[in-house]
């Protein structure tokens, strides 16, 4: 293996590690939120700094790689997408941190189990976590077949989010929930919905890296693009 390839693999491993960290942050934020677990929420908040420093490190590693190796084509696409992915991961971690802070501040929180079920809080959480872990697999295995599935999940997330607006509005109107608490819950739902959007961005970056198709702003984005044509080897 060439030296430049080894360097690239090191870069990729850094991002993978950050990814696992963000996944666990998200998982813990979910648990903390669902169980009103302040201890766990504090843990998430305290590990937020690690995510930030990860992002800085990956950023500078990628800059160095570009400066030293002048990557082109697939290598350049990988480095560019790694930079964007690490920024996006950091934002996702910010949201997880935000959710955790909410749990810490509002320890009385959210004990209306029926409402929670109506809002499908656990489902929306699980969906974005799946999106994040599936996209991790997609990058790790350099396989874009998952991309359509992941992007489809974002629509589920959006739908749950749209329903949540109605459900919470009604719950506040019917005084099933304290309005302040209701709005804050809505903000948590909003954060989760944003995580879904960010996961979609990550998938787009992975597709850009592997298949060199820019999916952004294109309409037909759920069909996986054709793999690069292979010419006969002489």
């Amino acid at each position: 293996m060439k030296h430049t390839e080894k360097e690239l693999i090191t870069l990729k491993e850094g991002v993978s590690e950050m990814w696992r960290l963000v996944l666990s942050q998200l998982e813990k934020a979910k648990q903390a939120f669902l169980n009103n677990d302040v201890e766990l929420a504090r843990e998430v908040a305290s590990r937020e700094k690690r995510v930030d420093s990860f992002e800085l490190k990956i950023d500078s590693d990628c800059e160095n790689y570009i400066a030293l190796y002048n990557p082109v084509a697939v290598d350049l696409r990988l480095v560019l997408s790694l930079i964007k992915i690490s920024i996006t991961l950091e934002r996702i971690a910010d949201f997880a941190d935000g959710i955790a802070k909410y749990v810490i501040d509002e320890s009385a929180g959210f004990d209306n189990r029926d409402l929670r079920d109506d809002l499908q809080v656990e489902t929306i959480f699980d969906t974005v976590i799946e999106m994040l872990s599936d996209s991790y697999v997609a990058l790790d295995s350099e396989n874009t077949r998952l991309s359509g599935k992941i992007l489809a999940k974002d629509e589920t997330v959006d739908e749950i989010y749209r329903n949540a607006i109605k459900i919470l509005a009604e719950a506040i109107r019917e005084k099933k929930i304290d309005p302040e608490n209701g709005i804050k819950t809505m903000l948590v739902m909003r954060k989760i919905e944003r995580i879904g959007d960010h996961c979609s961005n990550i998938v787009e970056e992975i597709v850009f890296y592997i298949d060199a198709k820019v999916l952004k702003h294109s309409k037909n984005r759920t069909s996986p693009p054709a793999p690069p044509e292979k010419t006969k080897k002489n």
Partner: protein
Amino acid sequence: MLETKNIDFYYGGFHALKNIGMKMEDHTVTAFIGPSGCGKSTFLRLFNRMNDLIPDTRLTGECLIDGEDIYHKSVDVTSLRKRVGMVFQKPNPFPKSLFENVAYGLRVAGTTDSRFIAQRVEESLKGAALWDEVKDKLKKSAFELSGGQQQRLCIARALAIAPSVILMDEPASALDPISTSKIEDLIHILKKDYTIVIVTHNMQQAARVSDKTGFFMLGELIEYNDTKKIFMSPEKEETQNYITGRFG
């Protein structure tokens, strides 16, 4: 416009170019890249028939400049070479004065009007971005220039005969980075008036100077596309392996 159709070229029994067809538009820079011995230089030299100098070679297919088959019997090779200038890998100024180097093409073409020659020499040196550096020493030997200046002198020499096409065979491979970047700047300027085809081993250079890039391997044109496309997302695996350094 340069165009080839079904070009096959042989050195003796060696099949050096295999069924190459491509078009190069006027006022563009086209770069040829590929591993050593892939045929890119051979292909470049088809356009001013420099391959004619090598014994025991054979060409089939068509090679057209502005629609005219340059290998047709009626074509005079020396007048073809006045339309298609060439710059070589190593600067090769003649052991003459700067002035006479640039005037050489005009003199061998039979021009005797000394005022016209002086004017062309000045224009050409300006065109090659060398005039300001040498205008006071036109009578000095060309060998007194630095390597980068010599190469620009060779470009000026090619410009003096007013070609429409300039072929460059690794024009900066023997130069230091600063001279190289001057040559590259020059290529960007010359593009306005000339059609430029450049062979280079330096892929970054191809990326920097060209509009289109052709990737050659084992005598085949593997991929020919916009330079941005080639360097961002090539369509062929061979191209990608070569430009990312995974070749071989």
